[in-house]
C-alpha cells in the first residue's frame, strides 16, 4: 500500500475521535521514589543485585569470582582489558569469532552508563566493541564508571536514543516459561556482572 493512502486512512478514521492534547507531566509523576531511593549508585547496586546481577568494585574480588565460576578464556574490548589487568590471570582475545561462539567463558564490554531506578546498565553501540561479546558468553562483565549513573528511567531516556542501537540490561537473561519456574541464562548471560570503576 502507498504511504499517502495509508496515512489518509488513519486521518479519515481519527476525525471521529476528539482531538486530545498531549498531557503535561513531570518526571516526578513517573519516578518510583522507592526504587530510586538513595544516591544513584546506591539505588543501582540495590536494584541490580535484587534482580541477581553481581556488582564488583575490586579487581581481586572479580578475579576470584571468575575463577570460582571456572572461567579461563574471555573476549574483551582491548582498552578495558588493559584497564582491569585481567590478562595476567585469564586468556583474553580481542575479537569474537562467530565460528567458535562457545569458546568464551566471559565477555567484557564498556557500559555507557547505568540507571539507579531500574538497576540497569546501558550499552550503546558507539561504546561497545562487539554485541556478541555481551550476549553469547555465559558471563558478561560490563565496566561502568561510577560517575556515569543517572537516577531515573526518565533521566536515562534523555541520553539513550542518540545511537543506532542501545540497550538497557537489568539482570541475567531469564525466563519463567516452563511452569513459572525462574531459570537464568536462557540465551544470553546466566551471570551478569557490573564492575564499577572510579
Amino acid at each position, binding site marked *: 500500500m502507498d504511504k499517502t493512502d495509508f496515512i489518509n486512512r488513519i486521518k479519515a478514521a481519527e476525525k471521529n475521535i476528539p482531538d486530545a492534547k498531549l498531557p503535561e507531566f513531570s518526571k516526578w509523576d513517573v519516578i518510583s521514589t522507592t526504587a530510586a531511593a538513595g544516591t544513584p549508585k546506591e539505588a543501582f547496586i540495590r536494584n541490580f543485585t535484587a534482580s541477581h546481577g553481581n556488582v564488583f568494585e575490586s579487581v581481586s574480588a572479580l578475579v576470584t569470582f571468575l575463577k570460582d565460576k571456572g572461567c579461563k578464556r574471555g573476549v574483551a574490548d582491548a582498552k578495558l582489558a588493559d584497564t582491569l589487568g585481567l590478562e595476567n590471570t585469564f586468556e583474553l582475545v580481542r575479537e569474537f569469532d562467530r565460528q567458535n561462539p562457545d569458546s568464551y567463558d566471559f565477555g567484557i564490554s564498556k557500559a555507557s552508563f547505568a540507571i539507579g531506578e531500574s538497576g540497569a546498565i546501558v550499552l550503546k553501540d558507539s561504546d561497545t566493541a562487539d554485541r556478541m561479546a555481551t550476549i553469547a558468553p555465559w558471563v558478561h562483565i560490563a565496566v561502568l564508571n561510577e560517575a556515569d549513573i543517572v537516577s531515573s528511567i526518565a533521566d536515562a531516556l534523555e541520553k539513550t536514543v542518540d545511537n*543506532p542501537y542501545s540497550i538497557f540490561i537489568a539482570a541475567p537473561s531469564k525466563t519463567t516459561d516452563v511452569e513459572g519456574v525462574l531459570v537464568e541464562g536462557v540465551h544470553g548471560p546466566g551471570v551478569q556482572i557490573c564492575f564499577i570503576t572510579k
Partner: protein
Amino acid sequence: MSEQPIDKFCETLNPTVKNAVTLASVGSTIAREKCLAEAYPEDGKVDRLRELANEIRSVRPSANFEKAVESLERNGVKVLFAKDGDEARKMVLDIAKAKNAKNVVKIKSMTTEEIELNRFLEENGIEAIETDLGELIIQIDNERPSHIVKPAIHRRRDDIARSFEKHKIAPYDDNPSHITLNARRYLRKKYFAADIVVSGANYILAKEGTVVLATNEGNSRFSMAGAKTHIAIAGFEKVIPSARELSVFLNLLARSATGQNSTVYTDFVSGAGSAKNSPQEMYVIFLDNGRSSILGDEFAEILKCMRCGACMNRCPVFRLVGGHAYRAVYPGPLGIVLSPLLAGEKIADFADLPKACTLCGGCADVCPAKINLPDLVLKMRDKIKKRKARVANDVNLKPWAFLASSPLLWRMAVPLNKLANLLPLDAFKIGPLGRWLKTRTLPKFKGGNFRKWFSKNG
C-alpha cells in the same frame, strides 16, 4: 438454547491444563499488585500514571505517525505500509527472496502471530524459528499462544520435554533448567545462521525514529547480533511521541505484565549497521489490518492496549478456561473485544465471546492504559446482536422484564423460587443444556422471606 463453542471447548479441557492456567494467572495478578504497591506507595500515583498512559494514547495518531515515518527514514530505515496481513506477509517474503534468505529468527510478536507469518514463510521454503522459549514450545507443536505474555502457560514440563524429544531438540529431560538449557543450545546455532530477524515493536518513538523492544530472555539482542537484516512489523498504534513519554510506559509495562520492575532487556533500535555483528539493513512494516476501522468506531480505546496481559490474568473466566478457549490470537478480555473486530466479515464466529464475561470489572481495574474493557465488551455484545448474528444462549428476557417491573407480580413470584429446589436438574443433562449444566451448579434457594421479616422488624 443453542451451542456455545466456548462451552464445548471447556467440556474437554484437561484439568491439569486448567490448573496450570489458574495458578499462573492468579500468581501474575498478585505479583503485579505487590510490585506496583511497592514501587508507588504514594496515594493515587499508580492511577495518575495509568491515566497518563491513557491520555498520551488519546492524541490523534496521524501527526505522530507521519513524524515517525520521517524519523525512521532519516535513520536509514526502509519503511513499508501494509493494508492487511496478506500484504505484510508478501513484503517479508519479497525481502527474503531479494536477499536469498533461507533462515529467519523471530522475536516474540503478537502482531506476527496475528498475520500468521511463520506458517506462510514455511510454506515458501523459509525456516522461521521462534526464539522466545514459550513461543518455541508452542511453535514446534503447531499451537497458538494461549496467553499474550506467557504463550506456553498451558503446558506442563513433562509434555514440553516429550515435544523436545519428538522434534529432536534434546533427549527427554523434564527439569525446567535443563529444558531451558536445551533450548539455549538449539537456538544458538539458529542465531548464527540467521539471514533475517523479524520482530514486532512494543513502542515506536516518533521523534527519534526508534523501535523499542522489551524482552526478558535476551533473544532480541542475540538476534540483533546474529542476523544480517532486521524487519520490524508493527500496527500504527504502536507509535508514541518521543522517549519522554516512553518513561510512563516502561514504568507500567513489566510491572503490569509479570510484576517485575522492568524487563531484563529493553532494546532501542534506530537503524542498522552500527556494529560489526549487527543487521546491515532495517525495515519497518506498518500494518493496518483493520486498525483504521477500529480507530474510527466506538472501539477505538482498544488501540491503547500495551499487550501486558494483566486483563487476562485478572479475568475469572480466563483463569478457568485458558487462552485457547477464545479461538484466536488474542484471548481474555482483550480478545473478546479485539478478535471479533479483526475477524471482519467472520465476526459471527466469535459471537459467544462477549458473553464469556461476568462484567466483574477486574480487567478495567488492572489495565495499565485504563481501558474500560467491560464497557467495550457490552458494546461488542450490542454490535454482534445488531449484526443479527446467531448468538448462543440468547434467551428472550422480555417476560423477565415484565415481571421485574411490576411490584405486585414480583411479590407474588418470589416465594415460587422455592420450587427451583425441586427441579430434577440431573434429568436435563443432555444436549446443549446438559453441556451448560455440566460445568455449572444451581445453588439451593434460601431467600424469599425478607419482606415478611421487614414488615415485622423494619
